């Protein structure tokens, strides 16, 4: 449903992404891992429209979103929770969550969804009137998730949602990701905690130095001996893990190849 093909992108001072090929299948929970600076957040900014590819194809449901603005992307049903600082700290929790439905004009729909996310994330209802900035890191994540669901997105993209959380809070976050996935949403997850991310993923992707180096099912990628080399500081040969699902086959082929 989301396709990267030969994507190069950067911030004006040289390319950070150097030929990314990646397919996020509908209904998948695709988890991207990789060392710091690999370009994972840069990849996510392309999906949210904060950054545009310099060259390459970027499509969602068969339509190019390479030049789309964040607003147009939200309208197409993609939502993003950034790596850090997603909230409006001086607004109340309720205002923050309601802003998730900024583009929904039907007040009745907004009220219904708000009630739904309150049920899913009780903290939203409990702290509705408090300044969002006064919540703990884990609680803020919940509010960010709640806000993301206000658009009823088809693809939820999450950049290191467990970052900086103690294990119990991280567990709650992982559980809510899994339940979003079970509810039928496709998920693109970037995760620093390799095991926690890949164990839950249907599809695993390893990025390094601006390229996809390895992909397959979450379990296969996790079991791959090359992962060890990567996380001990080495680099790995480009390749694909033998994957029983065949998901992502061809994604490592050069752009334009048949």
């Amino acid at each position, binding site marked *: 449903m989301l396709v990267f093909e030969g994507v190069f992108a950067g911030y004006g001072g040289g390319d950070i992404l150097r030929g990314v090929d990646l397919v996020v299948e509908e209904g998948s929970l695709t988890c991207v891992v990789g060392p710091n600076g690999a370009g994972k957040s840069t990849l996510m900014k392309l999906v*949210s*429209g*904060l950054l545009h590819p310099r060259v390459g194809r970027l499509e969602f449901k068969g339509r190019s979103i390479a030049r789309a*603005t*964040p*607003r147009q992307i*939200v*309208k197409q049903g993609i*939502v*993003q929770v*950034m790596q*850090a*600082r*997603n*909230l*409006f*700290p*001086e*607004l109340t929790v309720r*205002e923050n969550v309601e*802003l*998730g439905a*900024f*583009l929904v004009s039907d007040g009745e729909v907004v009220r219904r969804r708000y009630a739904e996310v309150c049920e899913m994330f009780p903290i939203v209802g409990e702290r509705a009137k408090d300044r969002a900035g006064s919540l703990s890191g884990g609680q803020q994540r919940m509010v960010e998730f709640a*806000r993301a669901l206000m*658009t009823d997105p088809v693809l939820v993209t999450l950049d290191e949602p467990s970052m900086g959380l103690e294990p119990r809070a991280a567990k709650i976050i992982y559980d809510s990701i899994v339940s979003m996935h079970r509810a039928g949403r496709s998920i693109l997850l970037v995760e620093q905690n390799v095991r926690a991310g890949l164990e839950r993923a249907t599809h695993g992707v390893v990025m390094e130095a601006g390229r996809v180096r390895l992909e397959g099912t979450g379990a296969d990628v996790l079991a791959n001996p090359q992962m060890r080399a990567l996380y001990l500081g080495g680099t790995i040969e480009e390749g694909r893990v033998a994957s029983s699902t065949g998901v992502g086959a061809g994604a490592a082929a050069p752009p334009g190849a048949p």
Partner: protein
Amino acid sequence: MLVLQGIVDGILAGGLYALMGSGLTLVFGVMEVINFAQGIIVVLGAYLTYVFSTHIGVDPLVTLLITIPIMFALGYGVYALLLRPIKRDRVIMSLLVMYAVAVVIEGCLDIIFGGTLVQVHAAYSTSSIHVAGLEFSDLYLLAFGLSAVLLAVLYVILYRTKFGRSLRATTQNPTAAKLVGIDVDRVSATTLGIGVGLGAAGGMLFGMTESFNASSSYDLISRLLVIVILGGFGSVWGAMVAAIIMLVVEDVVAVVWSPVWGQTVFYLVLAAVLMFRPQGLFGRLAVRAQ
């Protein structure tokens, strides 16, 4: 009694400066643009009122119905055409752009009106009422009242409308605002329109309380910037409090000591505040999440 009169005068005039300064601080809050042209915008508003009231005979208050929309369009256009295209070094580049806008407007006003000082006159601009030994000039009461009304309208826009919510969201976290689908460029253009419109409304009142020419903008912008610094960049509430402090200090010093020392004493107060609160009275350090 003199001191009390000084306080009253200061509060009344402070309301007007709060109005002019609120436009400046609002714009900074949303887009980190220091609108150096706000001083000349006030003067432009004053001249527009002057032309409509003196040459066409419209009551100064009614001219607001014409000048506010014109000035809103000017602010919106300046953002859309000149500020939006800036891609890097936004803070410094936008300051230069607004400086250029100020110079162009000042030049035009100078050519059209020359350097002669003028003032807007209205029937109510000379009378005053006396209460408990204090004098309240009708004009300053009007200025204060109208400023209060316009600031109340601003409050309602900011806190009771969907646009206001998107404006406050943009101020606090522009990136997150984009990700929920807020059109940050449209919010910014509208905000500059509002800021310039408020400046022009202040200009109508300024033109009635003082005689002015194009060069009056320099004294104005330095006062407005100081108000915004004291109140805290981006804080509308801070600008209101700071404006009143500034004018009260000046007016009290003027009556108990000498008008010459009014500004100096105020700057000492400012320096003292900034030593303890470098972010200003109501400002926050590093307000923004980038």
